[in-house]
């Protein structure tokens, strides 16, 4: 450090002295960090902070004949008694509880396979499973809507080979949820497998060697070395997938439009409907904050559970 300073002294000597006077003891003008932060601060305050605060205020108001009136907690008491909100919450919860575990277990299995020397042309398979992510949410919603067509859909054609009769994928309340779970699993599993694979490759080889020397079976090595090593990635994917699924909107909007009979109505869709179909901004904002609280509570519970286990 010292030599660096000395060697560069001639260069500084040639520079005008004036700017140096404005420099503080830390070596840069005090205003510099604020200049770098300026765009971010303006955008953040205008388009993030203000909307969050504004939404909270809106959730305490209602629109009476074109006039916005303060309504206290009326939107929230209405929400607590709204059967459709509970239905949306239950739908979202069911999709979450079924889809996320299936997807993450599959992703772990895939990651183990991708990491195995027994697998031929590994990078090719990795790409094949990862590639669904290049499709946008709306695009794959449209695609799966066509594939799940009851009478002439490709999926029903395929299952006819194993002797099943056509399934009313999008026309039946239960199957519509199954369709969403299948579509989401197709879309996101490869991505999660790659996340696990990255984590797996950071587990030290000496751990496996030690386990091998101790005579551990492949299953024991997986259970006692791989899985604990994956913990950080598992915690992360569980929490991210949970937060993402609780805000589910695009897939049900395109695939089922919330139907049939609101069987795939999610909280995100219900918020959108109230805000932009019925233009009930107060109620939509209350749904938004209810969702915020739910996400916060669930994330905290998950973090606590993960902490206890370790």
């Amino acid at each position, binding site marked *: 450090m010292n030599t660096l300073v000395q060697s560069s002294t001639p260069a500084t000597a040639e520079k005008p002295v004036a700017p140096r006077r404005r420099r503080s003891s830390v070596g840069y003008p005090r205003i510099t960090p604020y200049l770098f932060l300026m765009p971010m601060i303006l955008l953040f305050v205008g388009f993030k902070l*203000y909307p969050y605060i504004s939404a909270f205020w809106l959730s305490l108001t209602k629109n009476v004949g074109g006039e916005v009136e303060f309504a206290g907690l009326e939107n929230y008491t209405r929400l607590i008694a709204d059967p459709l909100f509970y239905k949306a919450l239950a739908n979202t919860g069911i999709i979450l509880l079924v889809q996320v575990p299936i997807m993450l277990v599959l992703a772990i299995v895939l990651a183990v396979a991708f990491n195995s020397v027994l697998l031929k042309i590994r990078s090719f398979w990795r790409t094949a*499973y990862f590639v669904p992510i290049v499709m946008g949410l709306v695009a794959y919603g449209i695609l799966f809507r066509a594939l799940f067509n009851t009478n002439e859909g490709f999926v029903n054609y395929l299952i006819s080979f194993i002797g099943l009769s056509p399934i009313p994928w999008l026309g039946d309340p239960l199957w519509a949820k199954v369709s969403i779970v299948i579509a989401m699993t197709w879309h996101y599993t490869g991505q999660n497998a790659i996340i696990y694979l990255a984590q797996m490759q950071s587990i030290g080889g000496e751990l496996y060697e030690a386990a091998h020397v101790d005579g551990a079976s492949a299953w024991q090595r997986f259970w006692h070395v791989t899985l604990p090593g994956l913990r950080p990635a598992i915690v992360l994917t569980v929490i991210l997938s949970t937060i993402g699924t*609780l805000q589910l909107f695009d897939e049900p909007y395109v695939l089922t439009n919330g139907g049939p009979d609101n069987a795939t109505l999610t909280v995100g869709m219900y918020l959108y409907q109230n805000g932009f179909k019925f233009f009930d901004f107060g109620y939509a904002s209350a749904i938004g904050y209810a969702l915020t609280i739910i996400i916060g509570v669930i994330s905290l519970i998950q973090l606590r559970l993960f902490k206890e286990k370790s």
Partner: protein
Amino acid sequence: MSNTNIVVRKSRGRSLVLTTAIAAGAVFMVLPFYWLLIATTYGAHDIFATPPHFLPGPAFVENFVGLFRDTMFGRSMVNSLFVSTTYTALGLIVCTAAGYAFAKFKFRGQNLLFGALLVTLALPSQVTLVPLFQIMVNLGWLDSYQALILPNLALPFGIFLMKQTMSTIPDEMIQAARIDGAGEFRVFSQIVLPTVRPALSALAIFLFLAQWNDFVYPLVVLRSPESYTVPVALASLQGIGTTDYGQLLMGTMLSMLPVLILFLFLQRQFVAGILAGAVKQ
């Protein structure tokens, strides 16, 4: 000798079983793409057939031409490309500048500001839909490019990513450049930015994908079909009962082309971009 032979034979058998199983699964991952590709080559009336088509049909050009003639999909592609590229470029500037300030400077309000960013990272963005819509109405920005580009530029995740990456740059390097007489902006652009190039490309891909695929917010602030982005255009095409399915599926296929190109040419950075959101936190 015979013992190792058995081991080799056993692992060869296992290898075959594993590779076959993974290949079978991969068929299911790729099959929807194949079906889509084939579907774009058939006219609306015979896309759905029993048994389904497995070979390309004659209507690819017809669907392609029809899509651009009968709908405003071409305009939507231009909108999406412009918005996503501009958003990516500006987002990189905002996030790297802010990340640099957080990583390499000490200033009053630092913890407060950083804490505020952390909080919004945990809040669902759907909460802001209604207020953002009102802001855009008041500014007269419905249907505008800036309505799509500006709100998410200060992306908390992007700022975190850059802050973390830049924290690894030695302070001595920056000090040395200052002592050499480089101005603060030159230190940033010529010393700091080149060293974080891999993270920059990962963030760029992340930003582009986020904007290219964004749906619910554009759905809210875009009212006229001329302003639609690709996802909004596709969803609205699907919503119209009279839509030509051949054209719709052609649009669906075209919508993934830019992303597919990014993926094929920048595979390493692409995966890094997807992983960045997961691994770096």
